[in-house]
């Protein structure tokens, strides 16, 4: 059972999570990172490109610059929420994607990786997870990005939609309880709802501890 974040006397921020909770958070962080990389076409080639961009050879640098300009508009609806258009003018939005999307993706992926590393380091069982201020910022942003992806999968469009989803789930549980039917699709969205609630609660508790 998770215990909320609190500020410790030395200024660090700590919460307690059990092994299953850590594993779930690490897993959805990994899935979010994979989704971003897959949709934006960021792969292992990215490192080679980066090296080329820092190369002494001007031709290689130019090549890298052009390759880096392929900032595609995300096709996945969740990734579009993570990388929204920066302008309502499509031409301007396209230009901003070209200029900033890769840096934004690198920052998001770095946050997600950092959170996975922190959770790994905390070990498999019930344990304390301790963050410094900088790690807390990464945790906040990463939790938020994962929540954005889960919200998209749950079809949340407007304020209050999560309450509706939650209510429908409870009605479903009562109906299913009577009929004892357990179809896979329902079980799947039940897990997404539970993880979304866990992450929201954890993020809120971290915000309160930081305040």
């Amino acid at each position: 059972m998770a215990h909320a974040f609190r500020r410790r006397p030395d200024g660090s921020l700590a919460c307690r999570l059990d092994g299953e909770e850590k594993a779930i958070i690490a897993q959805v962080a990994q899935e979010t990172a994979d989704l971003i990389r897959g949709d934006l076409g960021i792969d292992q080639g990215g490192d080679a490109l980066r090296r080329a961009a820092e190369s002494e050879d001007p031709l290689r640098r130019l090549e890298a610059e052009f390759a880096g300009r392929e900032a595609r508009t995300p096709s996945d609806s969740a990734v579009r929420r993570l990388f929204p258009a920066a302008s309502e003018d499509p031409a301007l939005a396209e230009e901003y994607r070209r200029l900033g999307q890769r840096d934004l993706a690198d920052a998001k992926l770095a946050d997600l990786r950092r959170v996975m590393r922190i959770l790994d380091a905390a070990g498999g069982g019930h344990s304390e997870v301790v963050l410094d201020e900088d790690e807390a910022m990464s945790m906040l942003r990463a939790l938020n990005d994962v929540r954005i992806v889960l919200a998209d999968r749950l079809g949340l469009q407007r304020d209050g939609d999560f309450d509706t989803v939650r209510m429908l789930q409870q009605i479903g549980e009562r109906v299913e309880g009577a009929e004892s039917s357990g179809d896979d699709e329902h079980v799947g969205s039940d897990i997404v709802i539970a993880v979304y609630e866990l992450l929201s609660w954890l993020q809120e508790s971290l915000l309160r501890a930081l305040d």
Partner: protein
Amino acid sequence: MPVDLPRAEPRTRTRTDAATEERTTLETEGPWCTVVWNDPVNLMSYVVFVFRRYFGYSRVVAEQLMMQVHDEGRAIVSRGSREKAETDVQAMHSFGLQSTIEKAGEG
């Protein structure tokens, strides 16, 4: 709210010069705005935290802006040069907020 002034040697100019130049800059360059849009995911406390942490706004200002986003669907959270607005929009995206750049008066 911050408006970028042209950089020059301040000692060599009179107050009137500076005022004229500021007016010219405003007329020709902008100012540009950073708009944050409402969405169903970001926690109210998170949005307030981001406005305070990134822009350095007081709690009262940050809460007002957050409520404006929540109630009206959008709020202008910063103004300035185009470069500043671009930086701010990118920063809002890094926090997962929905944000666009806008020329003042177009919204």
